[in-house]
Protein backbone atom coordinates (compact mmCIF):
# COMPACT_ATOMS: atom_id res chain seq x y z
CA UNK A 1 0.00 0.00 0.00
CA UNK A 2 1.26 3.45 -0.87
CA UNK A 3 2.29 5.52 2.12
CA UNK A 4 0.49 8.81 2.77
CA UNK A 5 2.75 11.58 3.97
CA UNK A 6 1.89 14.48 6.22
CA UNK A 7 3.52 17.69 7.35
CA UNK A 8 1.67 19.06 10.34
CA UNK A 9 3.62 22.26 10.81
CA UNK A 10 3.77 24.70 7.93
CA UNK A 11 3.86 28.35 8.87
CA UNK A 12 3.08 30.56 5.88
CA UNK A 13 2.32 34.23 6.38
CA UNK A 14 -1.43 34.02 7.03
CA UNK A 15 -1.88 37.68 6.01
CA UNK A 16 -0.66 36.91 2.48
CA UNK A 17 -3.16 34.59 0.74
CA UNK A 18 -0.87 34.15 -2.27
CA UNK A 19 1.97 32.93 -0.09
CA UNK A 20 -0.36 30.49 1.66
CA UNK A 21 -1.52 29.12 -1.72
CA UNK A 22 2.10 28.79 -2.89
CA UNK A 23 3.03 26.78 0.21
CA UNK A 24 -0.02 24.51 -0.16
CA UNK A 25 0.74 23.85 -3.85
CA UNK A 26 4.38 23.22 -3.13
CA UNK A 27 3.52 20.72 -0.39
CA UNK A 28 1.33 18.89 -2.87
CA UNK A 29 4.12 18.88 -5.46
CA UNK A 30 6.58 17.48 -2.92
CA UNK A 31 4.34 14.49 -2.28
CA UNK A 32 2.39 15.38 0.86
CA UNK A 33 -1.27 14.39 1.03
CA UNK A 34 -2.04 15.96 4.40
CA UNK A 35 -0.77 19.25 5.73
CA UNK A 36 -1.55 21.50 8.60
CA UNK A 37 -0.99 25.23 8.76
CA UNK A 38 -0.45 26.94 12.06
CA UNK A 39 -3.50 29.23 12.08
CA UNK A 40 -3.71 32.24 14.37
CA UNK A 41 -6.30 31.36 17.01
CA UNK A 42 -8.53 34.27 15.93
CA UNK A 43 -8.63 33.27 12.25
CA UNK A 44 -12.16 33.64 10.84
CA UNK A 45 -14.11 30.52 9.89
CA UNK A 46 -14.51 31.83 6.30
CA UNK A 47 -10.77 32.14 5.91
CA UNK A 48 -10.30 28.55 7.11
CA UNK A 49 -12.95 27.44 4.61
CA UNK A 50 -11.19 29.34 1.80
CA UNK A 51 -7.89 27.59 2.65
CA UNK A 52 -9.61 24.22 2.66
CA UNK A 53 -10.89 25.00 -0.86
CA UNK A 54 -7.38 25.98 -2.03
CA UNK A 55 -6.09 22.70 -0.62
CA UNK A 56 -8.80 20.70 -2.33
CA UNK A 57 -7.75 22.25 -5.65
CA UNK A 58 -4.18 21.18 -4.94
CA UNK A 59 -5.45 17.67 -4.10
CA UNK A 60 -4.22 17.86 -0.54
CA UNK A 61 -6.01 17.47 2.75
CA UNK A 62 -5.78 20.40 5.17
CA UNK A 63 -6.11 20.02 8.92
CA UNK A 64 -6.61 23.09 11.09
CA UNK A 65 -4.04 23.61 13.80
CA UNK A 66 -3.47 26.04 16.61
CA UNK A 67 -0.20 26.60 18.45
CA UNK A 68 -0.70 27.46 22.09
CA UNK A 69 2.14 29.27 23.81
CA UNK A 70 0.98 29.57 27.40
CA UNK A 71 3.11 31.03 30.18
CA UNK A 72 1.43 29.10 32.98
CA UNK A 73 -0.46 25.78 33.29
CA UNK A 74 -3.63 27.75 34.10
CA UNK A 75 -3.29 29.67 30.83
CA UNK A 76 -2.84 26.36 29.01
CA UNK A 77 -6.01 24.87 30.49
CA UNK A 78 -7.91 28.03 29.60
CA UNK A 79 -6.58 27.86 26.01
CA UNK A 80 -7.48 24.20 25.65
CA UNK A 81 -11.01 24.82 26.90
CA UNK A 82 -11.38 27.63 24.36
CA UNK A 83 -9.79 26.11 21.27
CA UNK A 84 -9.92 22.31 21.53
CA UNK A 85 -13.24 21.98 19.71
CA UNK A 86 -12.37 24.59 17.07
CA UNK A 87 -9.14 23.05 15.74
CA UNK A 88 -8.24 19.56 14.59
CA UNK A 89 -4.73 19.74 15.99
CA UNK A 90 -3.63 21.44 19.19
CA UNK A 91 0.10 21.89 19.68
CA UNK A 92 1.68 23.33 22.79
CA UNK A 93 4.92 25.26 22.56
CA UNK A 94 6.55 24.35 25.85
CA UNK A 95 8.70 27.16 27.18
CA UNK A 96 8.53 26.34 30.87
CA UNK A 97 8.68 23.13 32.82
CA UNK A 98 5.28 23.58 34.47
CA UNK A 99 3.59 24.10 31.13
CA UNK A 100 5.41 21.10 29.62
CA UNK A 101 4.28 18.82 32.44
CA UNK A 102 0.67 20.00 32.27
CA UNK A 103 0.63 19.64 28.48
CA UNK A 104 2.03 16.11 28.63
CA UNK A 105 -0.65 14.84 30.98
CA UNK A 106 -3.60 16.65 29.40
CA UNK A 107 -5.36 14.35 26.91
CA UNK A 108 -6.57 17.32 24.86
CA UNK A 109 -3.00 18.10 23.73
CA UNK A 110 -1.82 16.47 20.49
CA UNK A 111 1.70 17.74 20.04
CA UNK A 112 4.45 18.82 22.38
CA UNK A 113 6.90 21.19 20.75
CA UNK A 114 10.16 22.28 22.37
CA UNK A 115 11.58 25.16 20.35
CA UNK A 116 14.35 26.31 22.63
CA UNK A 117 17.93 25.82 21.50
CA UNK A 118 19.08 26.12 25.09
CA UNK A 119 19.61 22.65 26.56
CA UNK A 120 18.35 23.75 29.99
CA UNK A 121 15.08 24.99 28.54
CA UNK A 122 14.16 21.77 26.75
CA UNK A 123 11.96 19.80 29.07
CA UNK A 124 11.48 16.50 27.28
CA UNK A 125 13.05 14.25 29.89
CA UNK A 126 12.01 10.87 31.30
CA UNK A 127 9.37 12.36 33.61
CA UNK A 128 7.83 14.27 30.72
CA UNK A 129 7.89 11.18 28.50
CA UNK A 130 6.22 9.08 31.18
CA UNK A 131 3.39 11.60 31.48
CA UNK A 132 3.05 11.83 27.70
CA UNK A 133 2.95 8.04 27.34
CA UNK A 134 -0.10 7.93 29.64
CA UNK A 135 -1.79 10.71 27.69
CA UNK A 136 -2.19 11.19 23.95
CA UNK A 137 0.52 13.72 23.23
CA UNK A 138 3.24 13.13 20.65
CA UNK A 139 6.66 14.71 20.50
CA UNK A 140 6.91 17.06 17.54
CA UNK A 141 10.31 17.78 16.02
CA UNK A 142 10.63 20.72 13.66
CA UNK A 143 13.38 20.33 11.07
CA UNK A 144 13.77 24.02 10.31
CA UNK A 145 16.47 24.67 12.96
CA UNK A 146 18.49 21.74 11.60
CA UNK A 147 18.47 23.36 8.17
CA UNK A 148 19.26 26.93 9.14
CA UNK A 149 21.71 26.45 12.00
CA UNK A 150 25.37 25.73 11.53
CA UNK A 151 28.39 24.76 13.59
CA UNK A 152 28.34 24.30 17.38
CA UNK A 153 24.68 25.31 17.78
CA UNK A 154 23.56 22.62 15.33
CA UNK A 155 25.84 20.07 16.98
CA UNK A 156 24.24 20.85 20.33
CA UNK A 157 20.75 20.67 18.87
CA UNK A 158 21.51 17.28 17.30
CA UNK A 159 22.78 16.00 20.61
CA UNK A 160 19.58 17.18 22.36
CA UNK A 161 17.36 15.65 19.68
CA UNK A 162 19.24 12.35 19.91
CA UNK A 163 18.57 12.22 23.65
CA UNK A 164 14.92 13.25 23.32
CA UNK A 165 14.04 10.80 20.54
CA UNK A 166 15.72 7.99 22.43
CA UNK A 167 13.65 8.80 25.55
CA UNK A 168 10.47 9.05 23.45
CA UNK A 169 11.10 5.62 21.94
CA UNK A 170 11.84 4.09 25.35
CA UNK A 171 8.49 5.35 26.66
CA UNK A 172 6.56 4.64 23.43
CA UNK A 173 5.72 8.29 22.87
CA UNK A 174 4.94 8.77 19.15
CA UNK A 175 7.31 11.08 17.30
CA UNK A 176 6.06 13.47 14.61
CA UNK A 177 8.54 15.08 12.25
CA UNK A 178 7.39 18.38 10.76
CA UNK A 179 9.13 21.02 8.72
CA UNK A 180 8.13 24.09 10.77
CA UNK A 181 9.03 26.38 7.87
CA UNK A 182 7.49 29.50 6.41
CA UNK A 183 9.72 29.64 3.34
CA UNK A 184 9.02 27.36 0.37
CA UNK A 185 12.71 26.78 -0.29
CA UNK A 186 13.11 25.24 3.14
CA UNK A 187 10.42 22.65 2.46
CA UNK A 188 11.68 19.13 1.88
CA UNK A 189 10.17 15.93 0.51
CA UNK A 190 8.97 13.45 3.17
CA UNK A 191 11.83 11.03 2.40
CA UNK A 192 14.29 13.91 2.80
CA UNK A 193 12.86 14.88 6.19
CA UNK A 194 13.17 11.24 7.25
CA UNK A 195 16.76 11.18 5.98
CA UNK A 196 17.57 14.26 8.06
CA UNK A 197 16.25 12.41 11.11
CA UNK A 198 19.12 9.94 10.72
CA UNK A 199 21.36 12.76 11.97
CA UNK A 200 19.93 12.20 15.43
CA UNK A 201 19.96 8.42 15.12
CA UNK A 202 16.29 7.85 14.42
CA UNK A 203 16.15 4.62 12.43
CA UNK A 204 14.63 4.71 8.96
CA UNK A 205 11.42 2.84 9.84
CA UNK A 206 10.66 5.13 12.80
CA UNK A 207 11.49 8.22 10.75
CA UNK A 208 9.12 7.15 7.99
CA UNK A 209 6.37 6.56 10.56
CA UNK A 210 7.07 10.02 11.98
CA UNK A 211 6.21 11.61 8.62
CA UNK A 212 3.31 9.33 7.76
CA UNK A 213 1.51 7.04 10.20
CA UNK A 214 1.94 9.04 13.42
CA UNK A 215 0.64 12.40 12.12
CA UNK A 216 -2.19 10.69 10.22
CA UNK A 217 -3.27 8.88 13.38
CA UNK A 218 -3.55 12.19 15.27
CA UNK A 219 -5.71 13.80 12.59
CA UNK A 220 -7.94 10.73 12.22
CA UNK A 221 -8.49 10.46 15.98
CA UNK A 222 -9.39 14.14 16.29
CA UNK A 223 -11.66 14.19 13.26
CA UNK A 224 -13.56 11.26 14.74
CA UNK A 225 -13.86 13.10 18.03
CA UNK A 226 -14.96 16.36 16.43
CA UNK A 227 -17.60 14.72 14.25
CA UNK A 228 -21.23 15.12 15.28
CA UNK A 229 -21.56 11.33 15.55
CA UNK A 230 -18.98 11.01 18.33
CA UNK A 231 -20.35 10.31 21.81
CA UNK A 232 -17.41 8.93 23.77
CA UNK A 233 -14.34 6.83 22.93
CA UNK A 234 -15.69 3.66 21.33
CA UNK A 235 -19.26 4.98 21.15
CA UNK A 236 -20.63 6.75 18.09
CA UNK A 237 -24.04 7.38 16.63
CA UNK A 238 -24.62 5.12 13.63
CA UNK A 239 -28.23 6.09 12.86
CA UNK A 240 -30.68 8.79 13.89
CA UNK A 241 -34.44 8.80 13.51
CA UNK A 242 -37.72 7.57 14.96
CA UNK A 243 -37.06 3.91 14.21
CA UNK A 244 -33.90 3.81 16.35
Amino acid at each position, binding site marked *: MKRIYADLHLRPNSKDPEHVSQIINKASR*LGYRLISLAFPSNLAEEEIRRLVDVSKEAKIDLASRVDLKPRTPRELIHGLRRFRRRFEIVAVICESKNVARQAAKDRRVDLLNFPSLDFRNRFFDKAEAELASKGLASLEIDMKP*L*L*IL*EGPVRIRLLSNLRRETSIAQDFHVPIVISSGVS*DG*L*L*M*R*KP*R*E*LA*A*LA*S*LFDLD*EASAMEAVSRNPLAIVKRNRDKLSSRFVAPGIRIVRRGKDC
Partner: protein
Amino acid sequence: MKSVRRRYLALEIDSDELFDSREFMDAVWSAVLRLYGEYGASCAGLALIDYDMEKRFAVIRTVHTAVDMVRTALASITRIGNKPVAIHILTVSGTIKSLYKKATK
Protein backbone atom coordinates in the same frame (compact mmCIF):
# COMPACT_ATOMS: atom_id res chain seq x y z
CA MET B 1 38.74 -7.35 -6.17
CA LYS B 2 35.13 -6.72 -5.18
CA SER B 3 33.22 -4.66 -7.72
CA VAL B 4 31.70 -1.39 -6.52
CA ARG B 5 27.93 -1.18 -6.67
CA ARG B 6 26.96 2.29 -7.71
CA ARG B 7 23.82 4.35 -7.46
CA TYR B 8 22.80 7.24 -9.67
CA LEU B 9 20.66 10.05 -8.28
CA ALA B 10 18.59 12.37 -10.46
CA LEU B 11 18.26 15.76 -8.77
CA GLU B 12 16.05 18.77 -9.16
CA ILE B 13 17.62 22.10 -8.22
CA ASP B 14 14.86 24.29 -6.83
CA SER B 15 15.88 27.93 -7.02
CA ASP B 16 15.19 31.15 -8.88
CA GLU B 17 18.92 31.53 -9.57
CA LEU B 18 21.20 29.65 -11.93
CA PHE B 19 24.37 27.88 -10.83
CA ASP B 20 27.19 26.34 -12.82
CA SER B 21 28.16 22.73 -12.25
CA ARG B 22 31.22 23.65 -10.20
CA GLU B 23 29.22 25.77 -7.74
CA PHE B 24 26.69 22.95 -7.48
CA MET B 25 29.24 20.21 -6.78
CA ASP B 26 31.10 22.42 -4.30
CA ALA B 27 27.84 22.78 -2.36
CA VAL B 28 27.26 19.01 -2.41
CA TRP B 29 30.80 18.23 -1.28
CA SER B 30 30.74 20.80 1.49
CA ALA B 31 27.37 19.52 2.76
CA VAL B 32 28.77 15.95 2.96
CA LEU B 33 31.94 17.25 4.56
CA ARG B 34 30.09 19.33 7.14
CA LEU B 35 27.84 16.47 8.25
CA TYR B 36 30.11 13.43 7.91
CA GLY B 37 33.66 14.77 7.87
CA GLU B 38 36.53 13.95 5.54
CA TYR B 39 36.33 10.22 6.23
CA GLY B 40 32.60 10.13 5.36
CA ALA B 41 33.15 12.20 2.23
CA SER B 42 35.91 9.87 1.11
CA CYS B 43 33.55 6.89 1.42
CA ALA B 44 30.82 8.54 -0.66
CA GLY B 45 32.51 8.19 -4.05
CA LEU B 46 30.67 11.24 -5.35
CA ALA B 47 30.87 12.27 -8.99
CA LEU B 48 28.86 14.55 -11.24
CA ILE B 49 27.52 12.68 -14.26
CA ASP B 50 25.22 15.19 -15.92
CA TYR B 51 24.27 18.78 -15.29
CA ASP B 52 21.73 20.92 -17.08
CA MET B 53 21.81 24.47 -15.77
CA GLU B 54 18.74 25.64 -17.71
CA LYS B 55 16.54 22.70 -16.74
CA ARG B 56 17.89 22.79 -13.19
CA PHE B 57 18.58 19.08 -13.40
CA ALA B 58 21.61 17.08 -12.30
CA VAL B 59 22.72 13.48 -12.06
CA ILE B 60 25.30 12.43 -9.51
CA ARG B 61 26.86 9.07 -8.75
CA THR B 62 27.65 7.56 -5.38
CA VAL B 63 28.35 4.11 -3.96
CA HIS B 64 25.27 2.16 -2.84
CA THR B 65 26.35 2.15 0.83
CA ALA B 66 26.43 5.97 0.87
CA VAL B 67 23.01 6.70 -0.65
CA ASP B 68 21.41 7.55 2.70
CA MET B 69 24.34 9.73 3.65
CA VAL B 70 24.16 11.62 0.35
CA ARG B 71 20.39 11.93 0.64
CA THR B 72 20.77 13.55 4.07
CA ALA B 73 23.54 15.85 2.90
CA LEU B 74 21.52 16.98 -0.13
CA ALA B 75 18.50 17.69 2.07
CA SER B 76 20.65 19.87 4.32
CA ILE B 77 21.70 22.20 1.50
CA THR B 78 19.90 25.54 1.81
CA ARG B 79 22.30 27.81 -0.08
CA ILE B 80 24.72 27.73 -2.97
CA GLY B 81 27.08 30.64 -2.54
CA ASN B 82 24.77 33.17 -1.03
CA LYS B 83 21.67 32.22 -3.00
CA PRO B 84 18.83 30.21 -1.45
CA VAL B 85 18.25 26.78 -2.94
CA ALA B 86 16.67 23.39 -2.24
CA ILE B 87 17.82 20.16 -3.85
CA HIS B 88 15.27 17.39 -4.23
CA ILE B 89 15.96 13.82 -5.26
CA LEU B 90 13.73 12.82 -8.16
CA THR B 91 14.78 9.20 -8.36
CA VAL B 92 17.58 6.77 -7.51
CA SER B 93 18.71 3.97 -9.77
CA GLY B 94 21.46 1.42 -10.31
CA THR B 95 22.07 2.28 -13.97
CA ILE B 96 22.07 5.55 -15.86
CA LYS B 97 19.72 4.12 -18.46
CA SER B 98 16.99 3.21 -15.98
CA LEU B 99 17.56 6.47 -14.11
CA TYR B 100 16.65 8.53 -17.16
CA LYS B 101 13.72 6.24 -17.87
CA LYS B 102 12.37 6.77 -14.33
CA ALA B 103 13.17 10.49 -14.24
CA THR B 104 11.35 11.23 -17.48
CA LYS B 105 8.21 9.29 -16.44
